């Protein structure tokens, strides 16, 4: 429930932000009209929220809820309805594996704030989020239309292709934090810990020490979340709407929210792995900041601060997603496949080998 309560509004806000950012990039003001009549009396806040299009978000939500939920006659009804639900399950459940802050008690011990603190965190995220492709394939197949079908096929092929590179890109990070002699872990919070150690190498974020991994991961992240320039599954120029061509109203909005959930979780993982998690700046771990602000004695405040910093980074990532969407045109499908298999995969393997050798050299 907590996940739903946080993720749905966040996804909604993202959709609003998407519209606003696209508008601003194109020199438009974006949605700025809707306001409930009673709210227009609120002096300052009212106009500001109206200008920001906040009420369009509410109106959109209401519209999705109340408009007629059409189920076309030619679809496989059972799976057609199951697909969006299936899309939501991995999208929301991955959130539980992502630490979103740190709690440093008075003794200086750090406890990550996480819903399900499992040791295989990263693996769990990858495993569960990969299930998302089933909903796309299912939606594409159940819709019984050529556009949906092609969209589903494309999405599944693309997801599989890029997952490979993505996982390979993460391996160097795990190799580094699971150096021989330490207890093996896949925990994401451990990765953050490694980026908040003192010293030049200890404090450096992995994005600086392993830039190729970070780059491959970022590219794969775009592809995994079906974002521009990799939104082959939707591809409205040639596939009308891709796998959700036949969907409307609330069912469609579930896909929509799932996509944003994937984006949020993906950005969170990316930040945790490569951008220092809840550490505000490189070489400046959270604990130092807490000391600087003289709030070390208030663990609650520090916890909140960490959440804030982490959330801020996620929002910055989301902005990057949108920014890229309105900058880079969509690839052709063959280009997507070529990039995935012929460019990213060899690069990821090469990167892995180089890192292995580097780690071996350093440890000696």
């Amino acid at each position, binding site marked *: 429930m907590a996940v739903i309560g946080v993720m749905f509004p966040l996804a909604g806000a993202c959709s609003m932000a998407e519209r606003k950012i696209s508008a*601003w990039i*194109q*020199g438009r003001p974006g949605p700025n009209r809707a306001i409930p009549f009673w709210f227009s009396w609120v002096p300052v806040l009212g106009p500001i929220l109206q200008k920001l299009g906040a009420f369009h978000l509410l109106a959109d939500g209401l519209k999705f809820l109340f408009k007629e939920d059409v189920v076309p006659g030619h679809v496989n009804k059972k799976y057609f309805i199951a697909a969006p639900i299936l899309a939501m399950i991995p999208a929301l459940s991955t959130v539980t594996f992502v630490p979103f802050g740190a709690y440093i008690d008075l003794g200086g011990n750090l406890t990550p704030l996480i819903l399900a603190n499992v040791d295989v965190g990263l693996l769990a995220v990858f495993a569960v989020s990969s299930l998302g492709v089933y909903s796309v394939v299912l939606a594409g197949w159940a819709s019984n239309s050529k556009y949906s079908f092609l969209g589903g096929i494309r999405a599944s092929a693309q997801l599989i292709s890029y997952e490979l590179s993505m996982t390979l890109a993460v391996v160097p990070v795990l190799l580094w934090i699971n150096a021989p002699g330490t207890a093996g872990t896949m925990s994401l919070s451990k990765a953050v810990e490694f980026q908040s150690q003192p010293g030049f190498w200890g404090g450096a974020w992995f994005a600086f020490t392993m830039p190729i991994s970070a*780059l491959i991961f970022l590219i794969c992240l775009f592809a995994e979340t079906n974002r521009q320039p990799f939104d082959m599954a939707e591809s409205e120029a040639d596939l009308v709407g891709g796998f959700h061509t036949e969907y409307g109203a609330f069912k469609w909005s579930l896909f929509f929210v799932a996509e944003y959930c994937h984006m949020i979780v993906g950005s969170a993982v990316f930040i945790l792995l490569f951008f220092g998690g809840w550490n505000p700046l490189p070489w400046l771990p959270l604990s130092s900041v807490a000391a600087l602000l003289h709030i070390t004695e208030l663990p609650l405040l520090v916890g909140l601060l960490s959440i804030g910093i982490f959330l801020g980074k996620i929002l910055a990532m989301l902005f990057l997603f949108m920014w890229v969407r309105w900058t880079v045109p969509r690839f052709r499908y063959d280009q997507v496949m070529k990039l995935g298999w012929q460019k990213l995969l060899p690069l990821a393997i090469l990167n892995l080998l180089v890192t292995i050798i580097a780690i071996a050299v350093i440890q000696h």
Partner: protein
Amino acid sequence: MAVIKLERKPLSLAERTYLPQIVGGLKITLKHLLKPTITMQYPEERPAIPAGYRGAPTLVKDPHGREKCVSCQLCEFVCPPRAIRITPGEIAHDSPNAHVEKAPQAFDIDMLRCIYCGLCQEVCPEEAIFLQNVYSTTGYTRDSMVNHKADLYQMGGTLPDEHFKWDKKKEAAEHGGSHHG
């Protein structure tokens, strides 16, 4: 036809990764993101209508309030989409404008047909019909899209007159020139 073959320069490594180009693109979009928006907030803000704008055709009166149209029907004749419909009529003998003799009884312009070509204004020998700055014509029914004589005069208003042709004629009839006074 001459064919010029251009040798394409091979791409450098940086170019082949596309990353500098993407960063360049991101820079451009960021610049636009920070620029002020240029959209006009239409119903509240209105565009400045330039001089010579061809909006809806209107009928005008001369500075003395006389309706200039004498229903010669040339505009009706020249109108390519046949949007204009005039019923001519005679001016009453006791009217101050009786010397003009003829005026439209009804003057309808169907704005669903009008193509804003301005030929009516061009052809008008009395300078009575002008395409002015009315650009937003809306309605719920076909009937409401027809501008009748009263609407046309209301939209047209009064324009300056350089000739006062009919006033001069009246004056000549009243003050001389007339043999059979």
